[in-house]
Structure formats: C-alpha cells, structure tokens
C-alpha cells in the first residue's frame, strides 16, 4: 500500500469531508485508499462479510462528479463507510452473520442506510458480526472469527466486532453497528474507537434484523467523537416506519463539541462502577475522571439503590425476545445455528413469562432511580467493560482473583445499564493495558441528551491522544 493511500485511509470523517468539500481530495482517491487497506487488513482481521469493490468505485466516481459540478451533500459526501451485516441494504445480501439468512436480499434499504446514502456516504462493505448479534465475541462459525487489529490473537468483542475492527484498522472512516446489550460500545472499547448507543427511539431500527425489540438500537462507530456526532446527525430522527421511533426534535450534535466540560457534574455509583475490574481498566478510567476534574468538571458519588440485578434482567430480556423471533427457525433448522446461539435461543424458551415481566418492571425501577440521580449530576462515567480483549475463542474470562467467569454475563457488567434504562451512552478510548490493548470508558447521559456525551468526549479527546494511536497492522 502506498504511503499516500495509507495517509488517506487514516483521515477522520471530519478531515476527509473537509478536503472533499474543498476539492483537495476526491471521493475516488479516498475509496481506492480504503479498498487497498481492506485488501491488506481483512485477511488478518476478517472484518467484512462482503466488500463492494466495484460498486464503491462507481459511486465514488459519481460523488466526485457531483462535487466538481458544485453539488455537495454535506460532511458525509464521499465518505467510505461499513455497515454491520444485519442492516438491510437494497439488492445486497444481508446475512445477519447467519447461515439461516445467508441468502436474504432486501428489496429496500434500512432507514439508517437510506439516510447515509442521502448524505453521500459510500458503502465499502458489510461487516462481520456475532451470529444474529446474539453474543459478545464475534466468533462467527459461518464467516470465521473477527480478530482484533491491536492483536489478531485477541477478540474484537461484539456483536458489532467487524465494524469495530474495520474502523480501527482504517479500512473505512466510520461504520454502523447495532447495540442491544452493548454491541456497539463493547467492540468500540476493545478496538480503541468511539461508539454511541443512542437513546432508545432516537434512531430508526426499520430494516434492521432484530435481536431484542425492546432494547435494540443502531449507532455510529468512528475514530473520533466529532466523527461520531457527524454520522449521528445523519441517522438521528423520527421514522414513521419504526413503531418504536420517537418524534422528538433532533439537534445539531456537533454544535457543543468545543464547549468544554467546566461545571459539568459527573456521577459515579460507589460499590459498582469501580468494583470487579482488571487493574488496568480501573486505573485508566480513574485517570480519565482525574482528567475531567482538571478540565473543570466535578465528580460525585451517587447511590443507585437497585443497580445490582441489572445483569439478570438484561439476560432475561435479551434471551427471551430473540427466542420469540427465532421460534420457527429453531424448530425447522436448529443445526443451521452456531452452538452458542442455538443454546441461548433454547434457553430463552425456558425462562418463565413472570421472569420476563419482572425484568421489564425492574427496567422501570432502574430508569426511575437514574432519572432521580440526574437531578444531582449531568452524566455518569464508568468502564465500558471490566476487562481488555481476551483470546479469540474464549468463552470464559478472568477478571480478578484468578477466577474464571462466564463471558456473556461478565461482558455486560456496565453496558446493561443503558440498555435497560434506554439512556444514551458513549464509549471513548481512555488508555491501554500493559499489552497495548485498548481500554474504554462509558459516558451515560439523560434521555435524548447525546449532545452532552459528545461534548464530554470531545473535550477528553482534545486533552488526550489515545484515539490518535493506531494498531500496527
């Protein structure tokens, strides 16, 4: 790969968009650079299920023609993006990482894909993922495991592991993932990138293969907070095709990026947020809090009485709802599922209706406690997950005292809280462990207040350089 191509592939969305607007860089050059990068990186990390080489080049040529003719669509015009393969794209196979849907070709775009197209983004491919998004490793039995660009022996988390690896490996400027129990934030954390789980209802799920209807969201994954806000501007907003979409006005999510954090109040839940962590994760997130204090924010302990129990509620809802969606296929094609997803779908059929309803009642309780707490603070900050990237194929993880724990429960220690409460949350890279593996922090905000999350994340990236470091791939 030439150094010019390499430099182009490393540009942020904001930088590339600016250069395209000024006609200093062509979308054609940018797309060629990303495709060249895919050719180098994808054999190692397996981030893509499909690559649209020919189509992306053709669209890039059209995007270039439009810019030259003075018709510029905005900051995403000509930007190469990846889409998780459970997001429907017209006339393109959309597998959801499964054998069951291996031949599904949607007849129309998912709303988020249509909005990105309308803003001029160019899709370079569909990204690999945990089968049907039902798991956190992206160890896919049908399309091969996704690997972490920082160390290909390590996992990229999931379920949007392909999107995380694709962005971290500089094969696209940004990607979309989906997040039910942490599937945007977890791979963002272990791949050292930024990822947003929006407020439930803020971004349309229309045309996206569901996992658990009452918690599903779609979110952007990028290398900078500013890029995340730019992509979010394009996909946020009401969609009458999605019954869960909320007709709440959208903001310009880039407007507050330079406001700083002076006077903002950060909440920490004692006895939960900094318990049961690998030491490097503890130290990196604590250090981030110190950075925020240095920038003028305050940090306060805030009790959330019933925060314990959230993992069980998360597992109950996240297992029973998919089991309803997959009920027919599980009976007709059980061997077409990977072993872990098949087992989880079978288990989801065996929890009781009362377990599910009590979990849904618990969500309301947890939400009420967080809304009460937001009278004292503007955001909460905690680790995104309690450990750094484990080895590919591991189903157990050691967090402390040498004790092995089940991966699925352990990985959702912190991401389950926003998923259950519907609150928005943003992963921002905040350090590395002793092996050079990324650590992420999760900033949780009030409903529909994504702007404050971007404001805090941008201030942190202004002060630190974790997001500028890149894997040696």
């Amino acid at each position, binding site marked *: 790969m030439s150094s010019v191509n390499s430099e182009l592939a490393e540009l942020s969305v904001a930088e590339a968009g600016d250069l395209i607007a000024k006609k200093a860089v062509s979308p054609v050059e940018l797309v060629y650079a990303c495709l060249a990068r895919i050719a180098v990186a994808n054999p190692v990390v397996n981030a893509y299920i499909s690559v649209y080489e020919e189509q992306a080049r053709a669209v890039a040529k059209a995007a270039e023609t439009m810019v030259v003719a003075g018709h510029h669509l905005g900051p995403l015009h000509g930007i190469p993006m990846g889409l998780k393969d459970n997001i429907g794209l017209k006339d393109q196979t959309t597998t959801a990482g499964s054998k069951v849907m291996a031949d599904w070709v949607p007849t129309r775009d998912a709303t988020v894909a249509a909005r990105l197209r309308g803003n001029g983004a160019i899709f370079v491919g569909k990204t690999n993922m945990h089968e049907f998004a039902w798991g956190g490793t992206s160890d896919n039995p049908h399309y091969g495991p996704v690997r972490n660009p920082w160390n290909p022996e390590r996992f990229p988390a999931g379920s949007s592991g392909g999107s995380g690896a694709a962005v971290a490996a500089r094969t696209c400027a940004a990607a979309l993932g989906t997040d039910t129990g942490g599937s945007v934030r977890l791979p963002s954390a272990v791949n050292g990138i930024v990822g947003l789980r929006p407020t439930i209802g803020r971004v349309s799920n229309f045309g996206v293969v569901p996992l658990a209807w009452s918690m599903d969201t779609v979110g952007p994954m990028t290398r900078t907070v500013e890029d995340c806000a730019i992509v979010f501007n394009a996909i946020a907003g009401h969609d009458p095709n999605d019954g869960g979409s909320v007709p709440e006005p959208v903001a310009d999510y880039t407007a507050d990026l330079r406001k700083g954090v002076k006077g903002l109040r950060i909440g920490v839940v004692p006895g939960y947020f900094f318990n049961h962590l690998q030491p490097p994760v503890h130290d990196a997130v604590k250090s981030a809090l110190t950075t925020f204090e240095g920038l003028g924010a305050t940090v306060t302990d805030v009790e959330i009485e019933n925060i314990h129990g959230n993992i*069980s509620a998360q*597992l109950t809802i996240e297992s029973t709802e998919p089991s309803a969606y997959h009920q027919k296929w599980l009976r007709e094609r059980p061997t077409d599922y990977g*072993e872990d997803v098949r087992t989880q779908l079978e288990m989801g*059929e065996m929890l009781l209706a009362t*377990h599910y309803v009590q979990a849904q009642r618990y969500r309301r*309780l947890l939400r009420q406690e967080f809304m009460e707490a937001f009278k004292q603070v503007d955001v909460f900050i905690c680790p995104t997950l309690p450990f750094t990237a484990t080895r590919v194929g591991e189903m157990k993880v050691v967090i402390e005292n040498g004790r092995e724990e089940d991966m699925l429960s352990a990985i959702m220690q912190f991401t389950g809280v926003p998923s259950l409460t519907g609150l928005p949350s943003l992963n921002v890279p905040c350090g590395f462990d002793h092996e050079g593996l990324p650590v992420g922090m999760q900033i949780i905000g009030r409903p529909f207040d994504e702007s404050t999350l971007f404001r805090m994340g941008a201030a942190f990236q202004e002060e630190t350089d974790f997001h500028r470091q890149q894997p040696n791939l």
Partner: protein
Amino acid sequence: MNDVTELSKMDIEVLARLAALPLPEGRPDVIRGPLSAWVKDANELSHKMSQARYLDLIPAAIFSHDSF
C-alpha cells in the same frame, strides 16, 4: 421463595415439552448448567420485584398509542 439450585436433565425436558421445542439427545445436558445459573438470578430478581414497595411499577415495555 424457594431457591432453584440445579436444574436436572428431566427439568429441561419438561420445559422443552411445555414450549413444544424438540430437543435432540444431548441438548438438555448442554442447556442445564447455564440455564440453572440464569434461573437462579432471575428468581432473585423476581423476589426483589415482588416486594410491596414495588407493586405500583408497571413493565417498561407497555402498549403505546404513539407506536401505531
């Protein structure tokens, strides 16, 4: 509340029968361990949510006129 310690293979077979879910030989043994752990935690949560102080809480996923 009674605590479920460990589900048996027969428990899994009964649950599968209730769900009209055919389970080939060997599957109950795969499911038994992890489901036992999930059910134990789910029962603890149900116990919490059954307290009188929470009786007024309605489920988060409820019918909304706006969504039709």
